[in-house]
């Protein structure tokens, strides 16, 4: 999960970084200046933590990404709560963590929309990968583009937790998709 923290307050940014690293095993990217953030491929992030004024100033970018924003608030300001989850920066640590936990969970649910079972197409790709065919050959056999093959392979790795060709081959054998590695 990639998180961007965009506020002009260095200590606040470092504090958030510490909380994310310590409790969520995520290292957010920190930006003191919104300009630096926009120079750094802002689309790459799954979530954004920032104050409402930054969101308003760059609303063209942030409004379509509303579901991935957490707003930092100060001085008991509750006006933004209906817009997005908020993080009042003066709250106690325990409730800060609770809010962050809910936010991270919500992001996790959005990311989890991928069904865990292999689709019929993914199964076909898996069999061919396991038999030792190259991406180009798989694309030709299934009549799909190389990019589609690559995206199926990416999903296979995400769903199975297995990256290498030989790992996929053994998985395929363990599950009866192929009977033997050398039957290409």
């Amino acid at each position, binding site marked *: 999960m990639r998180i961007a923290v965009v506020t002009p307050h260095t200590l606040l940014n470092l504090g958030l970084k510490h909380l994310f690293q310590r409790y969520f095993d995520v290292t957010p990217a920190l930006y003191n200046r919104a300009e630096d953030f926009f120079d750094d491929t802002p689309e790459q992030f799954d979530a954004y933590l920032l104050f409402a004024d930054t969101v308003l100033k760059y609303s063209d970018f942030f409004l379509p990404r509303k579901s991935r924003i957490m707003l930092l608030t100060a001085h008991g300001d509750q006006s933004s709560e209906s817009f997005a989850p908020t993080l009042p920066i003066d709250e106690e640590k325990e409730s800060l963590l609770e809010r962050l936990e809910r936010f991270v969970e919500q992001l996790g649910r959005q990311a989890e929309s991928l069904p865990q079972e292999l689709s019929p197409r993914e199964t076909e790709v898996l069999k061919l990968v396991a038999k030792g065919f190259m991406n180009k050959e798989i694309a030709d056999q299934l009549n799909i583009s190389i990019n589609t093959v690559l995206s199926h392979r990416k999903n296979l790795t995400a769903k*199975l*937790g*297995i*990256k*290498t060709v*030989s*790992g996929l081959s*053994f*998985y395929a*054998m*363990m*599950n009866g998709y192929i009977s033997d590695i050398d039957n290409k």
Partner: protein
Amino acid sequence: MALINADCKLCDVILNEPSIIPVINRFGIILGVGDKSIRTVCEEKNLDCEFFVTILNTFINEDYFPENRLKSFCATQIVDYLTLTNSYYQQFQIPNIERHFNSLISQSDSDNNNLELMKQFFEELKKELLSRIERDRTSWFPAIRAAAEQLQGEYYGEHIRYDHDEPDSLEEKLDDLKSLFVIHLRGEYDLNLCHGVIFALYSLEKDIKQHNRIRNRILRPIADAMLKACHDKE
């Protein structure tokens, strides 16, 4: 864990972080270390204390990697250390995984061919690791030693370049093997022996990751620079 220094007691470090036991073994230190400081132990064993402490710190803290300090050590010292880690894989860690794996298979339901297949996957990984060790022993390490001899301490620092980490196929395969166990294991099997195999795989993986960081980010750039300097000299 916080960084350790030469004045820490070696026993405290081991008590906190027993995974370094194989690392200290490589330096000829065995358990029963008493309560001496690292500095004293190094003096007694005639070890370069700064090198020893740096290796321990990079082993304990995955995100600690002082590239500049590591580059200041001489290449042959790094080659010596990596040679020791290689022979540790060969003589202890691989046989240890195999021993556990074999008992796991023999004690588990014989209809369960999952484990046999996973063992075959491990054999493939083992073959890859052993052939890398063989290439190190017969060609790469001797070439570095020869270059060091030829340069005799001459400066070659301006040639040191570090590009980026390539994905390492050994690390990726170990990762996959762990996934096969953790996510995809089926059937009846002996729980304790299974834990034994996984634990042994994790400890090999941790060691190989540290070996690879030193190998790819330190030794390779230094070796390339040395070989280039030798080449320029000729």
